[in-house]
């Protein structure tokens, strides 16, 4: 409770300082974001420069920390105080919730002028549209269902990257016997949930994933297939080293890099770690999708555009929206961030093999109807339901709970969170 009042007070104080800025006739946009470190900060800077080059005045409002939690608190206070920033980095169902609250601006005119409908896959349009109108602009697409493997380590047991879960288990057993950690994993709830959703996609299939994790069908959630998913999770638990609790994901990536572990299941932000260490895809590490029937779990960052007053702010907002989805920024930004562009017509020349595979897979998944939002990364489900999934996945993974018990807990937790 103290935390609530404290953050409210600080957020109000923060908004007061921003309200004092004088208004100008030039396009202007205040951007609230939490990209404050490394490649992300560089990416934001490139957007800032492009915005300035078009005569815009950028008011930077970074809120560091907490993976966006701190920013969410500031945003709430700003909106409640009637002074929202022009663009805010939020994603997934949160966009819909803000739109429902009537806080978001309609971007239809920019969207039709720039022909967004033609360049964005339908699955991404669903995320950023509210009642058929664009209210947010997607920045990138991260794929979640990746295996990052060290080919040298796999070669020690004569294996390659597995393409089915049976093969995964067989390879992992061989690695265990050879005294190698099969799966580099960090025991943090969101990481447990990341592995969980790739297993749901792989063991259950695309339709099951959609029914259980997207539509929250109670029969699917309580089905025998879900029991099998938890059985596989129990096996996965045997493939991680005993020191995994609390480990950060990038340390797990480093274990694969150093050859201490064979594989990691993680989104393609892991690629940034390999790149920073000067590793070459295909040679030093392999990126492969986790076993599934052409499924593709996407995580997409976006900027939601809030209803602002004043002609300068409105102009700035429209300009910013145009720039964010422009091919130029989509290319620069995603090269820096390690993700792929949200629009499908960006030149591929500068991207690496993993990114190109991701682009190809996204296009074919979009055509085949197997492009799905990630649950663990808050695209398929909003905070409360996602939290319920994560709670059960992590409680099962970190204890000796039986699969049947986990399934019944899952059904209860999802009912409670809805």
């Amino acid at each position, binding site marked *: 409770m103290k935390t609530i009042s404290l953050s409210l007070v600080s957020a109000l104080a923060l908004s007061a300082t921003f309200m004092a800025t004088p208004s100008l006739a030039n396009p202007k946009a205040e951007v609230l974001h939490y990209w404050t470190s490394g490649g992300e900060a560089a990416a934001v800077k490139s957007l800032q420069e492009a915005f300035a080059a078009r005569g815009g005045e950028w008011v930077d409002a970074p809120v560091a920390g907490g993976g966006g939690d701190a920013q969410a608190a500031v945003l709430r206070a700003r909106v409640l105080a009637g002074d929202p920033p022009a663009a805010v980095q939020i994603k997934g169902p949160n966009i819909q919730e803000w739109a429902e609250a009537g806080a978001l601006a309609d971007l239809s005119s920019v969207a039709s002028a720039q022909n967004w409908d033609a360049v964005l896959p339908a699955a991404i349009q669903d995320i950023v549209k509210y009642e058929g109108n664009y209210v947010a602009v997607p920045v990138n697409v991260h794929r979640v269902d990746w295996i990052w493997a060290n080919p040298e380590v796999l070669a020690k047991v004569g294996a390659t990257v597995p393409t089915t879960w049976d093969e995964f288990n067989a390879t992992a057993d061989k690695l265990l016997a050879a005294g190698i950690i099969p799966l580099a994993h960090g025991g943090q*709830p969101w990481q447990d949930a990341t592995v969980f959703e790739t297993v749901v996609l792989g063991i259950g299939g695309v339709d099951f994933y959609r029914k259980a994790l997207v539509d929250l069908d109670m029969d699917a959630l309580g089905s025998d297939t879900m029991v099998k998913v938890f059985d596989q999770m129990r096996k996965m638990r045997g493939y991680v080293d005993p020191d995994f609790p609390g480990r950060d994901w990038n340390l797990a990536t480093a274990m694969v890099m150093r050859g201490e572990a064979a594989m990691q299941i993680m989104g393609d932000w892991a690629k940034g770690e390999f790149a920073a260490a000067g590793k070459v895809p295909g040679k030093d590490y392999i990126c492969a999708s986790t076993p599934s029937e052409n499924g593709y779990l996407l995580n997409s960052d976006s900027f939601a555009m809030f209803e602002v007053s004043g002609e300068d702010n409105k102009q700035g907002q429209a300009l910013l929206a145009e720039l964010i989805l422009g091919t130029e920024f989509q290319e620069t930004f995603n090269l820096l961030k390690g993700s792929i562009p949200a629009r499908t017509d960006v030149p591929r020349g500068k991207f690496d093999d993993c990114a190109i595979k991701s682009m190809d897979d996204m296009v074919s998944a979009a055509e085949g109807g197997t492009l799905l939002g990630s649950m663990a990364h808050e695209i398929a489900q909003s905070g409360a339901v996602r939290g319920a999934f994560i709670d059960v996945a992590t409680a099962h*993974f970190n204890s000796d709970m039986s699969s049947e018990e986990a399934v019944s807990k899952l059904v209860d937790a999802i009912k409670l969170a809805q």
Partner: protein
Amino acid sequence: MTRPPLKLTDRIARALPQIVVAPSFAAILFFVYGFIIWTGYISLTKSKMLPNYNLIGFRPYERLFQMDRWSVALENLFVFGFLFIFAAIVIGCLLAILLDQKIRAEGFIRTIYLYPMAISFIITGTAWKWIMNPSLGLETVVRGWGWESFSFGWTNSETMAVYALVMAAVWQSAGFVMALFLSALRSVDQDIIKAASLDGASPWRIYIRIILPSMRPVFMSAVVILAHLAIKSFDLVVALTGGGPGYASTLPANFMYEMTFRRNEIGVGAASAMVMLATVAAIMVPYLYSELRGKKHV
């Protein structure tokens, strides 16, 4: 009897204490009690991402108590709170008694024990996380010495993680409790002790029967300070275990943060905050009441 009219300066002088205290009183009234009432109200609404002022009754509390994560957090609070307060007082008291034996370099030793208090819980948590990490910390060191079966992976164990929190918290706070007790020990009337030892009481008996009972107010201060530290513990959990493995070592403050700021469940978050407040009140109010009332009679 009519009083002579007061001069303005006298009036101001008389009202000065009230005037000086008024701003902080108003601030506390608003920011502490005002927000308690606001939180209580919000805990009865269907607030999700934004506060919503339509009352729906006790539904958020029902949902709260059906959540496994909450029962784990509440149970952890009782285990952690009780062990932490108990251990910190026992160890602090023992250290104080041992330091009180007129030993050499007492100032130096006292400083060493007191220093952890100067560190924030984030640092304590991080340091202990490394110490208790099986492959970095104590376990590897002791095994390196040849005790191969030694195991100290508390933070990695679902059942032991909460005790790891207790250990780190006691390490941080025991020195402070020691300082409290030490100053109290020094202020005990030496004549009574001398009289008791002339009567043939053993040092043990003197401590149990005379010195410790006379330090009752200090016990109360220690319990009050440690209890509020225990209930508001948040940063220690974040730094030491991250609430894990799974959510086996979360405390109610972490739960409240998770619900309110991450899961768009402001209603449930507010309900958990109210339960925390009620827990504190249930423990502290009777204790303070009995202690303060007792004092008046003396």
